[in-house]
């Protein structure tokens, strides 16, 4: 255990400044500074507000993570950072900070993919990822089904949303119901008092000719808005809890149905669910039930590790170090649309340059 790599991870792809410290698959620290309250009155994340907050929070959050972990920066074996995808200006703050820390400390730098990090965080709770693992990532920014054989080098997309992300649908429905932002937690809470069978909302892309593993939540969102407006127009009370529960049921039904189907079709018997929406209580319960029936082992990290955080980036960084993957160069750029298939952004000049970077960092 003690000789497992010690890695600090920095995540700034959206509105959370996350810094985590991980040794191998052991979580040592998970410090998060969130600007979510500053965005609430706008009803969505404002990129410039997020970027300003990242700059202010960076050094204090790094220090807090090191203190929590009880390690010093000199002990680290590497610095990992989200290189993309995400908000360009927000990513750039984290990438610039990570490069400066890596350079000043003489440690290798690993620019990694945000989505692969969401999958790899599972290792901090349930041990190393079985190979292969199916991953269902659902948040305000993404809704994807991914199959991974090796989380440091091989992530294949099976399907993704063709319009809104699942979390976006939660935000929009919360707005329609006047429940505020962010929508996920409040819709979940409301739904507990409601009847999930009260209204039969549409299940997007579940017809026989629809793409098997893609998602669509735009039609569902519109159907909810239409239903609510009709009630209001007729002068009737809107049964908010029933609407929330029925909407949530439609989302989780499609997500879990397609995830289980993907596992079966690919002969995969481990499913991990990550991303902010994985904190949803109905999604967790339904996934458990359906996976159990299908003989699939389910791995869902605790809610705090499902939302964006630095520990997930550190987890992937530690796995990169363990497997001897190439480090990134000091001219690493933030890539707001980094493809999911690019798990990391290795130095384009290869191992020779990476080695030079090490000795330069170590010697100076």
């Amino acid at each position: 255990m003690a000789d497992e790599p010690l890695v600090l991870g920095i995540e700034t792809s959206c509105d959370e400044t996350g810094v985590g410290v991980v040794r191998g698959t052991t979580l040592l620290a998970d410090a998060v500074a969130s600007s979510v309250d500053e965005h609430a009155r706008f009803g969505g994340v404002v990129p410039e507000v997020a970027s300003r907050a990242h700059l202010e929070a960076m050094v204090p959050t790094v220090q807090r993570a090191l203190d929590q972990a009880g390690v010093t920066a000199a002990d680290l074996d590497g610095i990992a950072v989200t290189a993309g995808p995400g908000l360009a200006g927000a990513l750039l703050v984290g990438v610039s900070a990570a490069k400066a820390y890596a350079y000043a400390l003489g440690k290798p730098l690993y620019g990694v993919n945000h989505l692969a990090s969401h999958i790899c965080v599972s290792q901090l709770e349930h041990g190393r990822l079985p190979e292969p693992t199916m991953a269902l990532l659902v948040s305000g920014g993404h809704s994807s089904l991914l199959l991974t054989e090796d989380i440091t080098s091989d992530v294949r997309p099976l399907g993704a949303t063709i319009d809104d992300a699942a979390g976006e649908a939660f935000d929009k429905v919360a707005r329609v119901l006047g429940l505020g932002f962010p929508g996920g937690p409040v819709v979940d809470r409301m739904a507990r008092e409601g009847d999930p069978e009260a209204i039969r909302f549409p299940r997007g892309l579940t017809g026989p000719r629809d793409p098997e593993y893609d998602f669509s939540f735009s039609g569902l969102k519109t159907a909810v808005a239409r239903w609510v407006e009709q009630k209001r127009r007729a002068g009737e009370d809107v049964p908010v809890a029933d609407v929330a529960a029925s909407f949530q049921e439609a989302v989780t039904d499609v997500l879990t149905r397609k995830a289980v189907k993907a596992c079966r079709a690919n002969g995969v018997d481990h499913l991990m669910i990550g991303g902010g929406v994985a904190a949803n209580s109905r999604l967790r319960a339904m996934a458990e039930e359906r996976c159990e029936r299908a003989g699939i082992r389910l791995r869902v990290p605790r809610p705090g590790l499902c939302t964006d955080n630095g520990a997930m980036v550190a987890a992937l960084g530690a796995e990169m170090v363990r497997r001897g993957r190439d480090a990134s160069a000091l001219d690493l750029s933030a890539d707001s649309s980094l493809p999911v298939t690019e798990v990391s952004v290795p130095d384009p000049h290869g191992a020779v340059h990476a080695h030079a970077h090490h000795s330069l960092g170590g010697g100076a």
Partner: protein
Amino acid sequence: MLLLAFDTATPAVTAALHDGTTVVAESTRIDARRHGELLLPAIDRVLRDAGAAKGDLTALAVGVGPGPYTGLRVGLVTAAALGHALGIPVHGVCTLDGLARAARAEGVTGPFAAVTDARRKEVYWAAYDEHGARVSGPDVDRPADIADRLAGAPAVGAGALLHAGVLTGARGPEHVSAGHLAAHAAERLAAGGDLLPPVPLYLRRPDAQVPAGYKAVLPA
């Protein structure tokens, strides 16, 4: 004393090393879109050119703008992280002061203004007296609104050259250089003077539109 200075508040990505007496190494590249990629390699280059080690650094000086935010933050967060990791102080310098010092070095005399591009048809600017001391600003304004106040006095920097039709005293130098920024900071520190805290001079509130109430989906 070994001071590392850099600035990313304008299209110039510039880094320099100052030993307390003189600038011993400098690297400047003009590329408004690649601050993030260029800064660390530039810092590495000036240290290597000077044969200095990171551990020898005694202080950092960083341009705090004003400047377009995304690039500006690259310099500030890099300075904050380097200072944290190396355990050395980080000082802020107004980017326009660096530009003004470069102008004086190029022979600009009398009162003048340093002007950079703020985009959206505006400029960031500050006014300096004949001794090079800042007497107003930094501010963000439209070129036409400051033309009267300058009354044809020299206006240096890319922001002035971009609006040379309005700012009749427009002239070089075009870009800030970290060497001048470093010299400015080194002098102030040697004299026991104050520099700025290393926080950005945004001068504008963030663009943030409050979305209007959700759109009705039923026909009206």
